[in-house]
């Protein structure tokens, strides 16, 4: 098992190195960031001096080498735009994204699996049909639109909830969290719902498909024959048997939502990392882009690793194979 983990981490470092090269070359190909941010009345000497000050006159390989040698010392560099260490910038906004994503993913998973199992267990009831119709809607309606409609309904027309931005935060362990205050919760509700919508639909469909399949297997027949109650069968057996694909999807979705909750964050003016990366791209803030994508690669590798480990816990066959 240890060898497996080490192998995965080695793979991760390769992915991260490749990522940094791609971002470096890509940004270099677009052009010099200074051209976008320099004031229009800057004369030639000031332009040249500014480019030199940020090391952008050096050849690409040299810029990359400087970046790498700093990175080895744990320094991701400073943002061109904010003049702050990149890691501070990202860390400062991570809690906002983290709480938003966690709440929405948990809502989606708990809600989606419950509804999906029900829809799979009683496929012909009208409630199941309603659930499935809703899930089709969740899949096919774009999330920015849902976001705008949520704002329109609950913030503008009904005036129950705020239209965007983060609420009051309380500091716990030196980090500010907003889901611990009532005001913060009222702010987080709409964006979390918006973010959860698509995932909820996906979880419903996964759980339903799994349940329908499992219900026909011998396991369930024998369990029924043994006189185990239906509720217990669903909780103890069906859930466990459909868990593998759900966990896989949960992991992948967690990663992609953490890294790219951009649309929701934009519409709800949520100060998270998704907004940060988009803003950085529009001004070619390369240190932030590179650091962010490297960390995202790391995040995905870690999530996949965790998912693999969870498989082993849930499914004894995997344990035997992996050992």
């Amino acid at each position: 098992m240890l060898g497996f983990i080490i192998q995965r981490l080695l793979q991760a470092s390769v992915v991260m190195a490749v990522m940094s090269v791609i971002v470096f070359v890509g940004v270099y190909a677009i052009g010099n960031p200074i051209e976008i941010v320099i004031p229009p009345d800057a004369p030639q000497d000031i332009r040249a001096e500014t480019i030199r000050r940020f090391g952008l006159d050096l050849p690409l390989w040299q810029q990359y080498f400087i970046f790498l040698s700093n990175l080895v010392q744990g320094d991701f560099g400073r943002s061109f735009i904010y003049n702050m260490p990149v890691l501070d910038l990202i860390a400062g906004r991570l809690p906002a994204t983290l709480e938003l994503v966690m709440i929405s993913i948990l809502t989606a998973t708990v809600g989606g699996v419950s509804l999906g199992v029900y829809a799979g267990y009683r496929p012909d009831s009208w409630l199941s049909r309603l659930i499935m119709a809703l899930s089709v809607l969740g899949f096919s309606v774009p999330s920015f639109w849902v976001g705008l409609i949520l704002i329109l309904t609950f913030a503008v027309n009904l005036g129950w909830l705020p239209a965007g931005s983060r609420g009051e935060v309380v500091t716990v362990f030196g980090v500010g969290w907003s889901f611990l205050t009532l005001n913060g919760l009222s702010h987080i509700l709409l964006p979390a719902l918006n973010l959860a919508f698509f995932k909820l639909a996906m979880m419903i469909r996964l759980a339903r498909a799994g349940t329908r399949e499992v219900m026909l297997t011998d396991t369930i027949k024998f369990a029924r024959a043994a006189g185990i109650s239906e509720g217990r069968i669903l909780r103890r057996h069906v859930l466990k048997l459909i868990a593998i694909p759900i966990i896989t999807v949960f992991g992948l979705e967690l990663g992609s939502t953490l890294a790219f909750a951009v649309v929701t964050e934009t519409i709800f003016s949520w100060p998270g990392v998704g907004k940060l990366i988009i803003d950085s791209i529009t001004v070619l803030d390369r240190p932030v882009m590179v650091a962010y994508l490297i960390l995202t690669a790391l995040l995905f590798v870690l999530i996949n690793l965790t998912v693999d480990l969870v498989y082993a816990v849930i499914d004894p066959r995997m344990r035997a194979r992996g050992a």
Partner: protein
Amino acid sequence: MTTRRILASAAIALGVALSAGLASAPLASAQTLTVGVRGGPESLDPHFSALGSHAEAAKHIYDTLVWSGDDLQIEPGLATSWKPLDDTTWEFKLREGVKFHDGSDFDAEDVKFSIERIPLVSGPTTTTIYVRRVATVEIVDPHTIHIKTDGPAATLPYDFVRLFIVSSDAAKDYSTPETAAAGFNGGPAAVGTGPYKLVSWEPKGDLVLERFDGYWRGKGPWAKVIRKEMPNDSSRLAALKAGQVDLINYVSSIDYLALQRDPSIDAVVGDSVYIMNLQLDQRVDTPLVRAKDGSKLDKNPLRNPKVREAIDLAIDRQSMVDIVLEGLGKPANQMMPPGFFGSSDAIPAREYDPEQARKLLAEAGYSDGFEIDLYCTSDRLPGDGAICQGLGQMFTQVGIKTNVNAVSKTVYFPAQARLEYSVFMNGWGTLTGEASYTLGALAHSNDPDVKLGAFNRIEYKNETVDQLLEDGAKTLEAEPRRKLYEQAMVETMADRAYIPVVQLQTVWGSKANSVTFQPRFDEDTLAFFIKPKS
């Protein structure tokens, strides 16, 4: 950026739906002003960035030596008067009795410190442009300074409109690139003489301010000001509709139409300093112009004055304003708005005459027309991409087949700097309200020796204009200098290598009958000058 386009169309849907309108909530509290802004500062160190939204936020906490008024003409700020003593010396008299937020007195030491601090901490949107002409700063007495320049610097007071003064005591230990952000963003160094004191700020988040009762202009109308950064146009409007903010800037032209039918929101329209400026490459060999069959032309047609005139005549500016910008603009006839220092009244309004344009093209030997690739920004200013498409259609109508490329500014500006475009358009704002800013950067030939023409990306060169601009830069007296710049503007416009298209307008939205303010040319939203409507 498909998301962007989708969002834009969603904004239409939202706008239409919103216009149904609902009773508006009263101001959150008469003592607090909450503003939803499109962009905010990049740091609270005022010397870090020359970006417009950065300076806008900084003006709440700090003061500038010279103030630029609502119409961008210069007025006394922390300096009460200024005059040139000789060719290379300017004397500034400083305002007496001004206090910093920490209670200490403002004096010449702070000015000298601030000027000398800029080169040490400036970011890529470099603030060194404000002090580029300064050689040394001499303190004569606590309220008089002499500034020695590196040559005759006629526009020095204009350079100082964004020279923010920080406290030399509070910022002393925070004046290197590594320490500046920590000192200013965290608070201890963010001490100014401005109308508001810093409470808290996070990048891309809220800037929270509290009134400074000892402000020299008098007490501000709001005890507390919160500036929320909301870059998405629809979200900002939704927040206003939901009563989360009292005022927003940059209402989009589509939403503006809907707002006019909505009694719960007041819209204020102000002229913008930005003018859409079409630029025609004057190089002998230009990359993106060709015959209609794709073959190379033997000459660059854009060098022919008749072709340039034809392009100018092909533009229907009034339709551009009425249809493309939904009325939020004005036809432009020169590169600066009227009334600016160096704008000329002698320039007539531009005409629209497609017949004449076709005739001129034929006279120039292009009766079959030719083909161009037109490049513009699509995400920098309101309507830039749409204006670009409008231009493309108008040119095609007179026989110049035009391929429209409205691209992100991230792509546009670096490529423009590499001289890869032949015909291109972007907005240009004369942020100092004064012609040397615009003509000096664009109309003078690119000449590092005299430090002029740094943004001239079309190799435009007119010896007369060059001479006028060089003379202007050395003429310290205002009136003779104004004449020189007016003449340079007339000459440049007559050449039509730069063709102004439209002047933009911007819209603010506020809750009905809540606040009143005078829109500023530079589009700044300054809480001190916003008054509650009682």
